[in-house]
């Protein structure tokens, strides 16, 4: 196979050859030809090196958080819980997933790996304590701070510095990231805001926020305790744990296996690579993704799901200035809020989707039909009518009532608020929040300000997650944006390509 064709210039052909080599795609003849050129042609050799590095940076930029695109939600398989009594310490309950995963994760994770590998030796030289998953007494050194990077600690006065030893106790980040290495050599990367306790040589407790964990072979058994009596035990892997404001937790495995267990409910699962478990207090543990396959009730689809996906449904909810006659007039009166609200929308079982005309009795009129489908998004868009509109996002509230879940299905609802830059064709997510059943969820937008031009959009999306055999509702939910100014269009802003 050759990459050269009549329409390919020599530079592109050379780059294609290099990229195919890096992906292990060359035939023996092509490989021999590549080596000959690398040996004989200094210019080509320089391009080869530059392109190899360039490709690494592109990988890191394209998916900096390593979030892989989700499969279509129609691709679901059933999950069966595994009684904890059936699990031995290393039982290969489930087959390992494939190795395909985000390459960006590898580039991003390289920093943690480097630190882990390097500092392990340092700690081995100065601390011969055997790793244990029992709690360490307060005051005993259990870890070292590897890197504080851009971390902001809640307690600035006693914020640890890179290289400091750490005793058992809390670490609270308000923002940024920091990496900690336990005596066992397990490395935990904290992303603020985050509330984490170091409770032993090989164990920690996460109360809020998100951590990434890398566990080299000698630290197998590293444990993370979570709310509601949940424990995540490493079986040789790299994984991420997030505790949401509702005390629900997500456990995502990138490599190897972990066990997610809740002894007080006799629940335990083993997760393989490219799998995610969601734990909601007082509900069964759910495997929402297993070895790349979404499972019933998956709630892993974050904003990326609907921003580029084909599964969204479109509705005609409107933004209006409170009390104003014309939605497009909203921007004309500075200080007037653009409000979105939903009131007593009723959604029927997804097997019988029904369209309802919805009328709000207050100032906001929702004049379009809203068709609810199971796990599909209900979406409200507001399109900015002119250039240079400066808005402030006010906090809001989402009050959802999901109804009774089906067996092994924890109910929940998710709201996403995002801004679409029409010029750059790019979404910016302001909020992506998942709440539990029958509760009010605040929509904290922190009074963020942003500027919109004509054609830019504000989008609010809501959905019930999981399967539900009863109705789902939004009750008196609201969110407001206030117009705070109008600026002239930036003349240097380029047009979209």
């Amino acid at each position, binding site marked *: 196979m050759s*990459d050269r064709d009549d329409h390919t210039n020599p530079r592109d052909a*050379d780059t294609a050859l290099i990229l195919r080599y890096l992906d292990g795609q060359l035939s023996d003849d092509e490989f021999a030809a590549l080596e000959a050129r*690398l*040996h004989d042609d200094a210019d080509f050799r320089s391009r080869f090196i530059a392109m190899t590095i360039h490709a690494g*940076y*592109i990988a890191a930029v394209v998916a900096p958080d390593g979030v892989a695109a989700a499969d279509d939600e129609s691709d679901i398989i059933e999950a069966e819980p595994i009684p904890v009594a059936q699990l031995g310490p290393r039982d290969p309950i489930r087959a390992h997933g494939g190795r395909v995963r*985000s390459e960006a994760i590898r580039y991003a994770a390289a920093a943690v790996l*480097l630190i882990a590998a390097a500092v392990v030796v340092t700690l081995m030289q100065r601390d011969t304590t055997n790793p244990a998953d029992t709690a360490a007494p307060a005051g005993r050194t259990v870890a070292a701070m590897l890197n504080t990077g851009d971390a902001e600690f809640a307690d600035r006065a006693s914020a640890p510095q890179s290289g400091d030893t750490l005793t058992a106790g809390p670490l609270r980040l308000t923002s940024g990231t920091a990496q900690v290495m336990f005596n066992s050599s397990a490395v935990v990367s904290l992303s603020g805001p985050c509330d984490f306790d170091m409770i032993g040589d090989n164990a920690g407790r996460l109360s809020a926020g998100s951590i990434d964990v890398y566990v080299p072979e000698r630290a197998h058994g590293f444990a993370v305790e979570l709310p509601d009596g949940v424990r995540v035990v490493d079986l040789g892997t790299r994984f991420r744990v997030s505790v949401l404001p509702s005390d629900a937790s997500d456990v995502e495995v990138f490599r190897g296996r972990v066990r997610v267990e809740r002894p007080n409910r006799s629940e335990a699962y083993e997760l393989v690579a490219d799998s995610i478990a969601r734990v909601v207090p007082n509900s069964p543990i759910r495997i929402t993704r297993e070895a790349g396959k979404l499972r019933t009730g998956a709630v892993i689809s974050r904003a990326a799901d609907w921003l580029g996906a084909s599964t969204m449904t479109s509705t005609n909810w409107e933004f209006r200035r409170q009390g104003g006659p014309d939605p497009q007039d909203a921007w004309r009166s500075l200080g007037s809020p653009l409000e979105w609200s939903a009131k007593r929308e009723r959604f029927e079982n997804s097997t019988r989707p029904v369209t309802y005309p919805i009328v709000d009795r207050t100032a906001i009129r929702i004049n379009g039909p809203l068709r609810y489908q199971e796990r599909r998004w209900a979406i409200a868009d507001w399109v900015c009518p002119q250039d240079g509109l400066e808005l402030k996002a006010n906090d809001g509230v989402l009050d959802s009532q999901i109804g009774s879940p089906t067996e092994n299905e924890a109910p929940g609802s998710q709201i996403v608020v995002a801004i679409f830059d029409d010029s750059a064709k790019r979404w910016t997510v302001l909020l992506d929040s998942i709440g539990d059943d029958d509760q009010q969820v605040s929509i904290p937008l922190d009074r963020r300000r942003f500027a919109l031009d004509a054609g830019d959009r504000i989008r609010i999306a809501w959905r019930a997650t999981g399967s539900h055999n009863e109705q789902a509702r939004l009750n008196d939910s609201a969110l407001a944006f206030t117009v705070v100014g109008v600026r002239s269009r930036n003349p240097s802003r*380029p047009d979209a390509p």
Partner: protein
Amino acid sequence: MALPHDQIVRVLMRHRVQLLAFIRAIVSDVHLAEDILQDVSALAIQKSDAIDGEDHLLPWVRQAARYKAMNALAKRSRQPRAFGDKTLDLIEADWAAHDTAASNDTLDALEQCVERLSPYSRSILDARYKQGHVGDQLAEAVKRKTASVYVQLSRIHNALADCVRRRLAGEVADV
């Protein structure tokens, strides 16, 4: 004089993309490259006495990585497909000219250039780097033939390189 361990870690972190790329250039497998980088990083700490200053660290790591990479390829196959010693000598020698880690400006420029790609080009990058598809899988993911998808991928890489260059030169660059 031996380098302090924390300084070694800082340098390795700053150059992680280049080092991973160097190893990948030898083994053409990002998974294997990462494992080797991890081993070599530990080795750099263990052998810090043998490293004479920061300037010596990266060449030392590359040399160690090269030999670990060749050993790994040999373990994987009796007749591994790998560049010969002379070719690797040339690559290793030239690599030093690319040791400068990308600045924040360069990364910002690259990010802006990626954002300005067409949806189709972006979908190819996503399929390659987000979903990790290569070869036929990549072609299937974007519904193109394998040969043509790599040509398209190469055009995107070249366009991004040009775009970054123009942005750093102060021009407003489209991709």
